[in-house]
């Protein structure tokens, strides 16, 4: 086969090749340096986290056999041979699951309401005063960065054990997360209606009510639904610190080695999360059309 590629003269070729090699070698050097730094960081981290590969290899069998054990009933049979025995506590668990869903629902709604009240002050284009924007933004940042379960730990002491602490913890954390997302929607809103309303002599409140809110409600609802999905997961572990929900049952089952209960409760949670994911996905698609999903 004959080639149709024109070959450059030797001299020109050498110069081009040298330039190419130099460019590539610089990139390679940088990549190598990055990889070395990363590897050093990993080794440092491994020492810091007391990683012990021998422990892992000795106990890795335990990890697999743990799943073997949680899938075995007390009678020694596989769990799926006797569904009634496996899910013996389904009434109680469903009730706790219902409580979990309620916690996340109420928490999300309270959080969304608070975020709705605050986000206009945090958005660049609608905030009445720069200092107010700064304060509200730092407040939202704080609520978002402190993990929900830390709030729950503190609230359990302040409000007593029970779902109330979980609801409030989820509400505060959602306020932080949603407040940021909501204010981003407001920043993307069209400002022409606001100018129109302001030119009629309306107050700041009416500007928000009649010019901004109609543009942003769909986005708000979509994000709130997404947050509800996340909060269901979050609420399922609130019980670990005594803040209500199905996590309480799960942590008892894990700590007391009620093996088959662990798998039954885990399965209940996973299925519930799946159903909620699919349902909210469908609802978002249905309510706001395809474009709101992205």
């Amino acid at each position: 086969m004959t080639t149709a590629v024109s070959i450059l003269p030797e001299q020109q070729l050498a110069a081009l090749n040298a330039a190419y090699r130099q460019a590539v070698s610089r990139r390679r050097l940088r990549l190598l340096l990055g990889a070395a730094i990363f590897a050093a960081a990993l080794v440092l981290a491994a020492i810091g986290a007391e990683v012990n590969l021998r422990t892992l290899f000795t106990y890795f069998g335990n990890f697999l056999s743990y799943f073997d054990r949680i899938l075995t009933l007390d009678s020694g049979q596989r769990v799926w041979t006797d569904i009634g025995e496996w899910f013996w506590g389904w009434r109680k668990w469903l009730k706790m699951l219902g409580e979990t869903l309620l916690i996340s629902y109420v928490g999300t709604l309270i959080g969304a309401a608070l975020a709705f009240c605050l986000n206009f002050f945090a958005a660049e284009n609608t905030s009445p005063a720069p200092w107010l924007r700064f304060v509200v933004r730092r407040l939202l940042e704080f609520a978002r960065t402190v993990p929900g379960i830390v709030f729950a730990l503190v609230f359990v002491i302040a409000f007593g054990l029970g779902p109330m602490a979980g609801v409030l913890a989820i509400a505060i954390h959602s306020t932080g997360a949603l407040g940021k997302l909501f204010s981003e929607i407001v920043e993307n809103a069209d400002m022409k209606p606001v100018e129109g309303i302001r030119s009629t002599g309306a107050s700041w409140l009416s500007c928000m009510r009649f010019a901004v809110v109609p543009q942003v409600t769909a986005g708000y609802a979509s994000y709130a639904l997404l947050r509800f999905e996340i909060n269901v997961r979050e609420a399922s572990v609130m019980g670990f610190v005594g803040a209500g929900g199905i996590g309480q049952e799960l942590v008892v089952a894990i700590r007391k080695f009620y093996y088959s209960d662990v798998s039954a409760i885990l399965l209940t949670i996973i299925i519930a999360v799946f159903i909620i994911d699919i349902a909210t996905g469908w609802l978002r698609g249905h309510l706001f059309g395809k474009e709101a999903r992205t």
Partner: protein
Amino acid sequence: MTKPQEVDAAQMRARYPDVFNRPASSRLATPAMIAAAFAILIYGLVDLDFSPSRFFAGLSQLGWITLMMIPPDPGSSLPIYLKALGETLSIALLGTTLAAVFALPVSLLAARNIVPSNILRFPVRRFLDSIRGVDTLIWALVWINVVGLGPFAGVLAIAVSDFGAFGKLFSEAIEGADQKQVEGIRASGGSALHEIRFGLLPQVLPVIAGQVLYFIESNTRSATIIGIVGAGGIGLQLAEQIRVLEWQKVSFLILMILVAVAAIDFISGKLRFAIIGRRAVA
């Protein structure tokens, strides 16, 4: 200037009957939904033992706690806390790296353009989904049962729960890759592995690196909380100090976490810009 047109209400009504006479179902839909949402909210508040007296009693308690938190003060345990913070960062870094290393081959199996057959892809995807459905804290509890209390359990917990997330994200990145380059490799006689190595990986690696960095960032947050169930790191100290009501230490620890998270955010943001360029991040 033209005068505004006279509007004949009756004519408009006749021309656009849909706008003026909406059926009852569409007019009532929004209020009905709001009413239903409120009904569930009220039911939830009652069912979850909300009462104004409890709420305000708790609020005043919370006010006291906040007052006791000022000023933040580590007492004599600052070195311990710094070590715990280092442990937390180590957990996040190691856990995320482990997850990424294991997720990359599995994500190839879950990508439509690599494995066209549904029979193999479907179970892989459901497997990843169910791993993601279980919270990191639950994985931490399970691993504590296996390797004992300590930060190592935390590393494994983060690795497992991120494995699920990475598998999905990586496979989406792979599916979004341009097929032309893969075809080019195939046209020049490359094998299937060559196609992946030279056609696909150069396209997806920057995206994947960006996602891994982002997860290291968000895992710093997760790593702070898995200590609460005993899997090492600063969360362990935090939970202990909350239980013994040492509020000044608690507020100091929370401040430490906030500063560390902000610092990691800043660094990984810079790194991400350097790796994939400003445009791709925004």
